[in-house]
């Protein structure tokens, strides 16, 4: 069922080598190819639309859900709607991710629309990795949309990683955070060649003591372009911190437009944005330890995007 390319994709996006442990759903070229529910986590096909519903029972602890998507055909346009209901007091890890191996000359695209409800006191760790490969001229396009509702005392941590290979990406994240809820978004991005990446985030702090932290680190190489629009809105006594850090190289273009929008006197919102090239002293320091200029640069980027 899964061939060598599929397995390479799965390893790149989900760190899995074969069938994952726990609940999972593997989607390939627009169709579900294998899925498994567990006693506490139910995965069922969505009615009327492509995609799945994942229901995590209240109180489920320490379980994981893998939902990788792989595309190995050229000219594929895959649109999927997934809904995740994380029950009260549950604590789970969801590993998503999409790998496109485009062998041909037509565009292959995956648009994943993910809706999360993190119920009262629940904790979610969501990891999403994007990866593109294949020698064809066809574009590899990924446009993920992530919509979260974090209920009272809920906690969500999103790790979104896209390192090379994806030609065009528009990522949109929207979150509403209620009383004592917390959202941590950590984004790592590397673009090269003529790639284009756009990130938009709207985080609504609606409940008292809702907090959020957005950490974005990106590297733009060659002729690639990146745009960031993180936006945090404080509608209650709340705290938000947005930090965008970009390393720019070659002829790349990076625009960072963070916005903080306070609509309550006790909203504390901070944004920091920085764009710059690798400092010359950093490269020189690593060269004095015996690394070549290229090795030094590689090591600095590796650390930065860790």
């Amino acid at each position, binding site marked *: 069922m899964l061939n060598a390319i599929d397995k390479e994709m799965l390893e790149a996006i989900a760190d899995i080598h074969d069938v994952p442990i726990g609940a999972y759903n593997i989607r390939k070229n627009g169709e579900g190819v294998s899925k498994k529910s567990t006693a506490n986590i139910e995965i069922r096909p969505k009615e009327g639309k492509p995609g799945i519903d994942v229901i995590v029972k209240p109180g489920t602890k320490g379980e994981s859900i893998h939902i990788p998507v792989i595309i190995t055909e050229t000219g594929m346009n895959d649109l999927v709607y997934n809904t995740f209901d994380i029950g009260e007091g549950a604590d789970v890890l969801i590993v998503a991710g999409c790998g496109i191996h485009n062998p041909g000359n037509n565009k292959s695209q995956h648009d994943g629309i993910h809706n999360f409800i993190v119920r009262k006191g629940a904790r979610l760790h969501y990891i999403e990795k994007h990866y593109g490969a294949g020698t064809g001229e066809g574009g590899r396009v990924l446009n993920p949309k992530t919509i979260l509702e974090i209920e009272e005392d809920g906690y969500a941590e999103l790790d979104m990683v896209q390192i090379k290979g994806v030609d065009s990406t528009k990522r949109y994240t929207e979150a509403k955070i209620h009383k004592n809820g917390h959202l941590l978004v950590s984004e790592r991005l590397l673009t090269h060649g003529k790639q284009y990446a756009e990130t938009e985030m709207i985080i609504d702090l609606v409940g008292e003591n809702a907090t959020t932290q957005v950490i974005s680190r990106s590297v733009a190489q060659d002729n690639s372009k990146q745009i960031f629009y993180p936006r945090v809105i404080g509608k209650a006594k709340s705290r938000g911190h947005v930090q965008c850090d970009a390393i720019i190289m070659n002829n790349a273009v990076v625009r960072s437009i963070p916005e903080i929008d306070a609509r309550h006197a006790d909203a504390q919102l901070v944004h920091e944005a920085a764009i710059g090239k690798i400092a010359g002293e950093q490269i020189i320091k690593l060269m004095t330890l015996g690394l*070549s200029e290229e090795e030094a640069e590689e090591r600095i980027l590796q650390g930065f995007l860790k």
Partner: protein
Amino acid sequence: MLELKNISFTLDSDKEPVTILKDVSLNLEDNKFYVITGPNGGGKSTLAKIIMGIYQPTAGKIILDGKDITELPINERAKLGIGFAFQQPPRFKGITVRELLKLARGEQKGSGCNHLYDVGLCPKDYADREVNASLSGGELKRIEIATLLNRDLNVAIFDEPEAGIDLWSFSRLTETFKEMNNKNKSTMVIISHQERILEMADEIILVSEGEIQEIGEKNEMLSQILSKCNCDMACPERGEENVKCY
């Protein structure tokens, strides 16, 4: 032995070229402890950076153990056992102290975190911290020194290692330098203004105005430096009053 032969370094500027070093020749013998001292802006750091390959001299040759290394890039000189501790070390987001020390060790086994003890830092507290803005200037300097302790060096150069290091840790630092010199048989080249570091020297090199003004055995140099003024230039702002410097 490291030989500097007729090294000059001139920077192009908008108006006229600025000469930083003028025809400097110097022999640094194996296993000896040298301290370079002299006024700010005299050319000490430039001289050290030329040895490491960070600056290319505009004239002259650098010979290490009979081999001409003038044209070698920084990393090739590093592989020949030249090490340099920066006066203001850079920070690295996402690289931990442990990883930096490991990079310094190269092929050698182990993480080298034990060398953090030698610079007065507890490995348990520091090994997994990132070398980023969360570290103070003094902590960063100590980690910088530890990266050199982690290497098997023929020539270890330290650019004002004591700057930013508190007095409490200072004696530890001088011990560490002595040990490095004795144990590893490294030639030590330390740029410093500190009397206690000057006292450790076999030879003191006085650099000012881009030239080696004097070089000599410690005792004779120290008494000279500490007792009288070597340069009699009049300070223009103070009229006839002589400037007290070395």
